[in-house]
């Protein structure tokens, strides 16, 4: 069997199409495992994984922790709010201290873009990026693309619009890389102020009108407005954003075509997505969450596969 071309999952930019396909194929088997009466396999029983979260997370952290436990790994959790980081410890010191306790893999979320890349140059453990600032969120992109593959049979040739706060979104960047590597057409849509300059250089279409974007695409991946990352006002009010960019049932009905709605969560109901769409049959939001565990199991399994003689 082929192995991944990388030792760390730092971003989708660094992985190949083959890597993504291998992760998907492996995730297929793990999806079957997590639907068994006993949802656990012993593959990673001799591995210890630290989930190091310097930023808040519910879904990703829970999903990683479940994936690790389903693979029988030992798990330690770390969050910066209750740690010595508050006392002035550097990132490298914190991680080296964790590794001194014989940890094999690090799953890290950090507010600084490039933090996991920096770490990968200084430590021996496998690193999985669980989101680094506004840069990348590779496992989210993988599970998004996997959910599209699951629903449509393939990603190639599909038209996907990523709608919302593209400027502050690590999900958007990772999604663009993943979907393009798999042969999909990608469009980004949002208010001008929330679209990064030169985003079209990544080979994506750019659209300011949400209705036109929805008319163009088969799948809409709707992103949250990341108020916590916005230091200035990018639009007058959430109410105005909801009026111009919020997706509701009447907008979907006016398209007169089937469309699939995705959202990486957490949803701001009534802002970017109304409940009448988020809870409708068009949405595959909960399927994304389920697939997240299978994808993360596949990534952990494949990264841990490298031959490591016991000493």
């Amino acid at each position, binding site marked *: *069997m*082929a*192995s991944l071309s990388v030792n760390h999952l730092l971003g989708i930019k660094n992985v190949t199409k083959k890597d993504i396909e291998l992760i998907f194929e*492996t995730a*297929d*088997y793990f999806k*079957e*495992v997590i639907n*068994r*009466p*006993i*949802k*656990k*396999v*012993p*593959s990673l029983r*001799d591995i210890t994984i630290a989930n190091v979260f310097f930023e808040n997370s519910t879904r990703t952290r829970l999903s990683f922790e479940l994936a690790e436990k389903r*693979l029988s790994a030992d798990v330690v959790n770390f969050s910066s709010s209750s740690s010595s980081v508050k006392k002035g410890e550097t990132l490298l010191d914190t991680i080296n201290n964790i590794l001194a306790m014989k940890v094999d893999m690090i799953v890290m979320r950090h507010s600084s873009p490039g933090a996991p890349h920096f770490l990968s140059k200084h430590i021996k453990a496998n690193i999985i990026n669980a989101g680094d600032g506004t840069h990348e969120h590779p496992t989210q992109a993988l599970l998004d693309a996997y959910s599209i593959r699951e629903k449509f049979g393939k990603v190639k040739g599909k038209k996907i619009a990523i709608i919302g706060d593209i400027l502050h979104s690590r999900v958007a960047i990772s999604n663009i890389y993943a979907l393009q590597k798999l042969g999909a057409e990608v469009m980004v849509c949002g208010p001008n102020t929330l679209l990064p300059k030169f985003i079209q250089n990544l080979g994506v279409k750019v659209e300011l009108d949400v209705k036109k974007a929805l008319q163009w695409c088969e799948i809409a991946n709707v992103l949250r407005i990341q108020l916590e990352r916005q230091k200035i006002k990018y639009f007058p009010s959430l109410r105005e954003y909801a009026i111009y960019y919020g997706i509701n049932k009447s907008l979907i009905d006016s398209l007169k075509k089937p469309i699939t709605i995705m959202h990486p969560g957490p949803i701001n109901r009534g802002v970017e997505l109304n409940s009448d769409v988020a809870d409708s049959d068009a949405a595959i939001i909960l399927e994304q969450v389920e697939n997240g565990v299978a994808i993360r199991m596949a990534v952990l*399994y*494949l990264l*841990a*596969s*490298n*031959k*490591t*003689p016991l000493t």
Partner: protein
Amino acid sequence: MQKKLLLDNQLFDITIRRLCHQLIENHGSFDNVIMVGLQPRGIFLADRIKDSLENILKKEIPLGYLDITFFRDDFRRREKPLKANATHMPFILEDKKVILIDDVLFTGRSIRAALDAMTAFGRPLLVELLVLIERKYTRHLPIQPTYIGRSVNTIQSQRVEVEWKSQGAKNDNIWLISKTNE
């Protein structure tokens, strides 16, 4: 490389039929019995046994496919990751008599993994093992089959290869392959 024919097409067929009748001798009408073929190669034998049994008994015999990849004991001890296969177990094994089916019994490690993997589907009443070829004196674990197609004396470096007509081979054959310098 030397190839020695262990079972030819005709003997192969006789062996399958004998195994089926041994199963019927022990399990009668196959009530409360489930057969489980081990991925990747045990499933061809399992399919063949199922077809033959159904021909004789004129009833459907439940058969599942079990993949043991994630339960193997050599994970992280190989250069390449182990490739998984599909598991298809549309039933629970709780309180069922289970017949595990694999083509070749060698070290016994796959069967150990299978016994482990099966527990994800419940606690069987009993588990039996059926193999087409039992390689003697090569076991790493105390595992013995209940039903044996043919027992052969082999050394570690030899390989047993099963060819299936259903998989595109010209005939159903079993070969013992040795390196020429042995």
